[in-house]
């Protein structure tokens, strides 16, 4: 059979076409014993406390500089587990595909997922495919759920203590800015690539170095601002941040200037914030620097009790202001 160029409704019908989609595409790329057993449900073995998470990915555009919706669907769910100190083990993947979607694009996406899985050695052990009539979804939606074994307990947004040091694993705002660029077709050149990446190796490095971690979170929607504000509020502490220490890529800063946004509000997909006790800060940095995606990790501030529940940004020239939560929807300024 020659391979089809587009996904048709019949690919979701449960018959022969569905079968060939599953075998020739999904099994081919996601191959592992549990999945290939093709039972109604995956039978898993877990030995310790587990973390369980789910997320649906509906990004537009689905292909962007630095990744695509598939890479994102793996990195996103794996990172949610990693941020709880859990080693990602088993994932599910569900696809909702619009009729007419290019088969080649689907293959590119699935390939990217398989690639991304290698960074954590997690496996896709079950999944589902639905094809819906044209217009019922915007091209493709992917849901991934995941289970991981907790290797480090006690990491929590409620556990920040006075004196804890705040580390950011890399420059902020790149995913959000890259998506905005693609969406608006701004045609501005530059090295603006989404930071989309799996963070488990970085977390593993922290755990191996026996760092105490008070809190850890990937700064996705709402960016750095959202994470810091959540922490300040949940732990009833003040986060004092040195603005000039926060790494921001030049192109991202430029986009912000054009539209009146703040890089701190933009989403990341492979950048996390870690809070550690002061005594562990240098060791934590050293551990992060050994891992490719976090080799630029840097200290941006410290926890105090100055103004509970708020984040204060100190400028390099002696003034300070609050860093507030980003508003619901990022809109460009009018002038």
């Amino acid at each position: 059979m020659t391979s089809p160029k587009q996904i048709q409704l019949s690919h979701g019908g449960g018959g022969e076409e569905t079968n060939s989609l599953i075998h020739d595409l999904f099994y081919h790329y996601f191959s592992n014993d549990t999945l290939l057993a093709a039972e109604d449900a995956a039978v898993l073995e877990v030995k310790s406390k587990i973390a369980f998470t789910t997320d649906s990915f509906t990004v537009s555009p689905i292909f962007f500089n630095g990744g695509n919706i598939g890479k994102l669907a793996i990195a996103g769910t794996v990172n949610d587990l990693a941020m709880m100190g859990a080693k990602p083990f088993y994932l599910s993947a569900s696809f909702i595909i619009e009729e007419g979607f290019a088969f080649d694009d689907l293959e590119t996406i699935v390939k990217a997922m398989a690639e991304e899985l290698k960074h954590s050695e997690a496996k896709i052990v079950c999944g589902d495919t639905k094809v819906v009539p044209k217009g019922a979804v915007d091209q493709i939606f992917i849901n991934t759920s995941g289970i991981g074994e907790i290797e480090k307990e006690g990491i929590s947004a409620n556990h920040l203590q006075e004196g804890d040091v705040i580390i950011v694993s890399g420059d902020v705002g790149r995913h959000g800015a890259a998506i905005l660029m693609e969406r608006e077709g701004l045609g501005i050149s530059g090295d603006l690539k989404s930071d989309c990446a799996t963070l488990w190796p970085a977390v593993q490095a922290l755990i191996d170095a026996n760092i105490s971690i008070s809190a850890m979170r990937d700064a996705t929607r709402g960016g750095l601002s959202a994470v810091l504000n959540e922490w300040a509020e949940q732990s009833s502490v003040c986060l004092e941040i040195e603005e000039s220490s926060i790494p921001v890529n030049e192109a991202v800063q430029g986009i912000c200037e054009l539209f009146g946004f703040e890089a701190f509000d933009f989403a990341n997909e492979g950048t996390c914030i870690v809070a550690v006790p002061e005594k562990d800060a240098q060791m934590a940095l050293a551990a992060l620097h050994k891992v490719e995606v976090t080799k630029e990790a840097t200290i941006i501030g410290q926890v105090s009790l100055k103004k509970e529940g708020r984040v204060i940004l100190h400028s390099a020239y002696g003034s300070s202001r609050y860093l507030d939560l980003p508003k619901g929807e990022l809109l460009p300024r009018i002038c």
Partner: protein
Amino acid sequence: MSELQLKDLYDGFRNPDVIKALAKAITDEAKNLKKPLNIMEVCGGHTHTIMKYGLKQLLPQNIDFIHGPGCPVCIMPKERIDHAIALAQMEDTILLTLGDMIRVPGSKSSLAVERANGCDIRALYSPLDAIQIALDNPDKKVVFFAIGFETTTPMTAALLEQVEKQGIANLYFHINHVLVPPAVDAIMADGQAKINAFIGPAHVSVISGAKIYQPLPEKYGAPVVVSGFEPIDVLQSILMIVRQKNEERCEMEIQYSRSVTLEGNIKAQVMIAKFMEPREHFRWRGIGDMPDSALVLREQYTAYDAEKIFADILPTEPIDDHKLCICGTILKGLAKPNDCQVFGTACTPNTPMGSCMVSSEGACNAYYRYGEI
């Protein structure tokens, strides 16, 4: 656009050493001021810079800021927002607008709420995107709810020019372009605001030329410095104002000489004049009716004028703000956001009662977001 280095947009204008040096120079010179300096920053963009970079903290006590009426979202009266909503609710219509306008409450609802209710309402990044939308939807009425001061008006004019050239028949305009000088005049004529200097928005002057501010020093005895929006621009402008005061001068000066001239962008002015003319009246939120303070499409473009074509569905009654909201007083330079009873309690960016809290250039929003630490 590929030659543009994004870095050029901000680099050099935030150098901490320069900021510190300017703050010190201002502090030194300000010791000689005979009277406290109350500077009105006419434009919301400057309010934002002052708050975001905490500039007031770097300055001496005898320099204070009074926020002006210069945010196109803040000054939009509720009945105009109701217009936008009524237009959006028409069958087979796509309503386009810019930025925060989407979230500003009208008398009963907002465009954001109506969008959630199923109306096709879109926030544009550039007005010119409206063309593609109109072409892609030939069976729909596409209405552009145009907002902004002198800064954004040329974009609307450029859009009109394209619409005319390409013979696009399904794109209509609801014009809400307002003008800075009449508003400043109204505030000063009122006499209550204690303003003795102005920072004029450079964006406006890039288009209209600094000449639009030339009458102010003489009329009101207050110096004007046309300023850029970076922290260094604003500090330098303040220093220029302090120096004028100490030297007993009262002039219009241009700090933002990077791109402001006395005459402005003549080409843009001509293009605007081709399509628009001053409108008899426009009611500003909080300030009230002001003649010649806004623009309207010229007679010969009535075919594009949503206000005329859809006149029968547009409400005409003026609608006032919530009793507790003092946006009007703030826009007139008579109060600060924290003087408002509901600031930060009943009124926050997520639950705005007035437009000054909605617009990211609004004074209430800037005070709430960045706070005074």
